[in-house]
């Protein structure tokens, strides 16, 4: 029941690599990280979900909240995810229509709207 976070910059994008479980207990940590990045002026975020074992609705709420924040600065929030389990959650809740989902970080970095 832990969450790991690390951030790095690739070109003008900020990649947040998330590992572990995003649930009711750990989601606040991810929220803080996203809020901090936006406050520091990073508006083009890529959240790499490849290391995520579990994501619940609280975690989804945090991602949606992050998206609203970057959009307020005309930014973007892209996800990198290939795991069927996680993708299913995005599909069921309709978030595939909200977040651009990529198969690799490189693809997400290269993507433009």
């Amino acid at each position, binding site marked *: 029941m832990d969450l790991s976070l690390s951030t790095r910059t690739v070109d003008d994008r900020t990649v947040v690599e998330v590992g572990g*479980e995003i649930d009711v207990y750990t989601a606040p940590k991810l929220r803080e990280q996203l809020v901090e990045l936006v406050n520091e002026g990073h508006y083009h975020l890529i959240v790499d979900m490849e290391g995520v074992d*579990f994501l*619940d*609705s609280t975690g989804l709420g*945090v991602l949606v909240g992050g998206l609203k924040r970057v959009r307020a600065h005309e930014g973007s929030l892209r996800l990198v995810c290939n795991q069927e*389990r996680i993708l299913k959650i995005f599909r069921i809740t*309709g*978030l595939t*229509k909200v977040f651009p989902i990529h198969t690799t970080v490189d693809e997400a970095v290269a993507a433009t709207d």
Partner: protein
Amino acid sequence: MAEALEGVPAPRRNADAVLSGTLEASRSAWPGDPVALLLVEDDPGDALLVEELLADSGISAALSWARSLADARRVLAEQGVPGCILLDLHLPDAHGLDAVTQLLAAAPGAAVVVLTGLAEEASGLAAVAAGAQDYLVKGQLEPQLFGRAVRYAAQRKQVEQAAAALQVERVRAQENSRLERGLLPVPLLRGDGFEVVSRYRPGRAQALLGGDFYDVVETADGTVHAVVGDVSGHGPAEAALGVCLRVAWRSFVLAGSSGSTLMELLEQILVAERDGEQLFATLTSLSFTPDRRRVRVVRAGHPGMLQRVGGDVEWVEPPGGPALGLLPGLAHWPQEELPLPPGAGLALFTDGLFEGHTGRGRERLGERGLLALARKAAGLASDLFVDTLISDAEAAAAGHGGLADDVALVHLGWKQTDS
């Protein structure tokens, strides 16, 4: 004061000790003794007197001495609030009740015992009325009385604070149960031809009230409508939004709304009422047609459901639209019509039921695991089926302290007519 002192263990112990000639024994420290005392007194002679009284009382607390209220504030800031504060009512910078109220304002958690002059009993009583724990009359002081007053003041203050904390807990529990009642209503059915079995199980983290909700109503045409929903996140704001959505759903359904229109209306309510933009809600709304052969399903970002027919259970997940609040004004929710076999039951639930941990690692029960549990319980009567499903899911998560999230589960179906 007299009646307040009843029930204190110290006097009896002391009396026994004196009778048996082992006064020293009564002077040993009590487990509840304050470890630090602050004396606020400008007269060095009186301060010395208090120091001696303390030494003879058997309380082994460290005594700090402040000569004025300003001095006392500085000591409090440096050392924190001690177990008991002894306050003289004639200070260079504060007098009488004013000294008591100022000191209590500076140290709200403190147990204050006031020191008064011989002819000042009235001001001692007034100080107690203003929030001091007790008063001692200078000139009538002796070690046992002093020790008892200090110990009792410190003890009673602790009890007061514990009672206040308990009251806060109680108010929160009442608030939670009020919200729960709002989230979990009594089904509004016209006849007894339809069976509803519903359960709500709060999550392990009790303080985290979730926004799971359900409702069942029957409209005039005999259609039975049901909903299960889940507001993302946990807390009073989420729970209140859950109540709001449930009542909105009930109102719109009774007013004849259905399908995508119903979802659009609910989303409008959610967007208008929500506390933060990140809040969204998932729900599944069902309509059991009066001919008992079909059920219409509208799914908004919510997980699938379990269909029970005879001794078998299937996972049913008809096409749906996004969760409410994600794409305000842009989304569409398809309404699917499914055949309802005779005797079929549908179980709607929130994700807390299958998101619990299982085993030792990071495994979760998952949809597949839940279906397996449901199949094991398939032959049971509806209420037993529902209870078994929850207790099995709970048992699977036992190694991780039980299910963390709230669970709402509703089993719905027409009753079998006397066949």
